[in-house]
Each structure stands twice: as structure tokens, then as C-alpha cells.
């Protein structure tokens, strides 16, 4: 069991990493010609935290990341969409990640898709135009693809960190 200070430092480091990822994407948006599509690099940190440190840590880091990045380089409406996407996606991933029939790959894939689904649903509600839902035809597969990319990155990071992982603290329910 890690000490309180150690845990605080660890979570703060994850938060800083997630913020940097979000900032990088804000500086160099990976535009594929389709509006509203990005990799969601910050999710790499969240997925990593979910698997390495548990649901509590992932939830706290994700919440703080969304609030801070909306304050630092966004606006209220962006923060709202960001929050809806991040929370829906994380809740689904938390629901799935402990079940033995799903791996990191499926969990991240579902997380990416649900992120986009939540945002499109919110957009349809706010604007009152259900036709926006047709955008899901594109955004669900894109979310699945970015989710797989994130899974690949998380997999690589965890494999690289594997020998050092014992020093970080045991995975558990967090909190």
C-alpha cells in the first residue's frame, strides 16, 4: 500500500501527462478532413491509469484533466462535450475492464466509440436536430479505430514499464 504522499504524487504525474497530451493535440490537431475527429491522446493516460491503478485513480485523473483543459485551452461548450464524452467512455470502460472476457483492446475500443456516441447524443439534444445522429455512421467506426490505437499505445507503454511496475504500487480498486 503506497503512502498518501506517494499516491498523490503518482496521480498528479498522471494528470500532468494527460494535460500535456491534451495540449499537444490542441497545438497540432490531427485533422483528417472530417470535423470533430481527433485521436484523444489524453485517453492513453486514462486507459493506462485504469489498468495500472484502478477505477478510482482513472476517474479522478480524467475529471481533473477535462476540467483543467477546458479552463486552459477551451471554452464552456467544449468543456461540456469533453466532459460528456470522457465520463461516458470511462464509465463504460470501468464497467468492462474487470470482466475476464474483455481485454484492454476491447475495453479501449468500446471507450473510444462510446466517447463519440455520448458527444453526438449531447449535440443532438442541445441543437434539437436528431439528424445529427447520422454522423454516428462515421464517428462510431472512427472511435473504435482511435480506441484500438490507444490500446496499442497503452499496451506498448505497459510492456515497456513492466519491470518497473511493482514500484508504482499494486493495482486495485484505487481510492
Amino acid at each position, binding site marked *: 500500500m503506497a503512502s498518501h504522499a506517494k499516491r498523490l504524487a503518482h496521480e498528479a504525474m498522471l494528470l500532468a501527462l494527460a494535460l500535456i497530451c491534451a495540449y499537444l493535440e490542441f497545438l497540432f490537431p490531427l485533422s483528417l478532413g472530417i470535423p470533430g475527429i481527433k485521436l484523444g491522446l489524453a485517453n492513453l493516460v486514462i486507459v493506462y491509469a485504469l489498468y495500472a491503478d484502478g477505477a478510482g485513480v482513472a476517474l479522478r485523473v480524467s475529471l481533473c484533466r477535462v476540467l483543467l483543459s477546458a479552463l486552459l485551452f477551451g471554452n464552456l461548450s467544449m468543456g461540456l462535450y469533453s466532459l460528456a464524452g470522457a465520463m461516458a467512455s470511462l464509465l463504460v470502460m470501468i464497467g*468492462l475492464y474487470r470482466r475476464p*472476457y474483455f481485454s484492454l483492446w476491447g475495453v479501449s475500443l468500446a471507450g473510444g466509440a462510446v466517447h463519440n456516441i455520448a458527444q453526438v447524443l449531447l449535440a443532438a439534444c442541445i441543437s434539437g436536430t436528431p439528424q445529427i445522429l447520422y454522423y454516428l455512421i462515421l464517428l462510431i467506426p472512427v472511435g473504435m479505430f482511435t480506441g484500438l490505437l490507444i490500446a496499442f499505445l497503452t499496451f506498448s507503454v505497459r510492456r515497456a514499464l513492466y519491470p518497473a511496475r511493482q514500484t508504482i504500487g499494486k493495482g486495485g480498486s484505487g481510492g
Partner: protein
Amino acid sequence: MKLRQGEYPRRGDALLAVALLLPVILLLVHFLMRANDEGAWAEVYSAGERIGIYALSEEREITVSANGYQNIIHFGGGQVMVVAADCPDQYCVRHAPASREGETIVCLPARLVVRVTAGEEGALDGIAR
């Protein structure tokens, strides 16, 4: 040990992918089915004046006469076409049915213009960032 288990793809992952692609297919089918007859209209101009606007989703046939010629215009099934005309060149009759926004069928002798316009599509532009 529990952590390692989650790192390699498992069978449930494919299940998740299929479950997520299901709504995509449903939406796509729905989209393709109503893409043709949603909100499209045709404006009809005769001798420079607009004489009417008709929905492309409703079966309808009108006869327009001007300049000594008659054209029979058919709307329906998401498209509009000139089915008969007594003009000498018959270009309007041979023109392919128009269904997309901006497509136009013209009959010069009869001074007739049929132009497809989008219906409520414009509503989406307001929120684009």
C-alpha cells in the same frame, strides 16, 4: 497476474466490436432509405416567373404552358422529370431525372426551368463550428 491477463485480445473484444457496429449499420440503412426523398423540393419557373414549388416525395404531374408550348412535369420518388413536351428539340424530355440539390432541367422553347432545392437541410449549418 490479473493485470497481465487483460493485455492480450480476447474473444469478447470481437463481440464488443460487432455490438458497436450494429447501430452503425441500422443508421446507415435508415439514412440510405430516406436520403432520396427527404426535404427535397423542385421549383418550377415558367417565362421567368416562379409558378410553384413541389415536394419530390409526392407523386404528382403538372402541365405548364408558356410561349405556345406545353410541358408535362412529373414529381415523385425523390426526383423530377419532364415526361412530355411539344417543343421541337425535346432536350427537356431526354434530360435525366433530377434529384440532387441544384440540378436543373431547362426547356428553352417553352422558357421553362425546373430546379431542385434542398428543403430543411439548411438547419444543420447553424451549429457547424
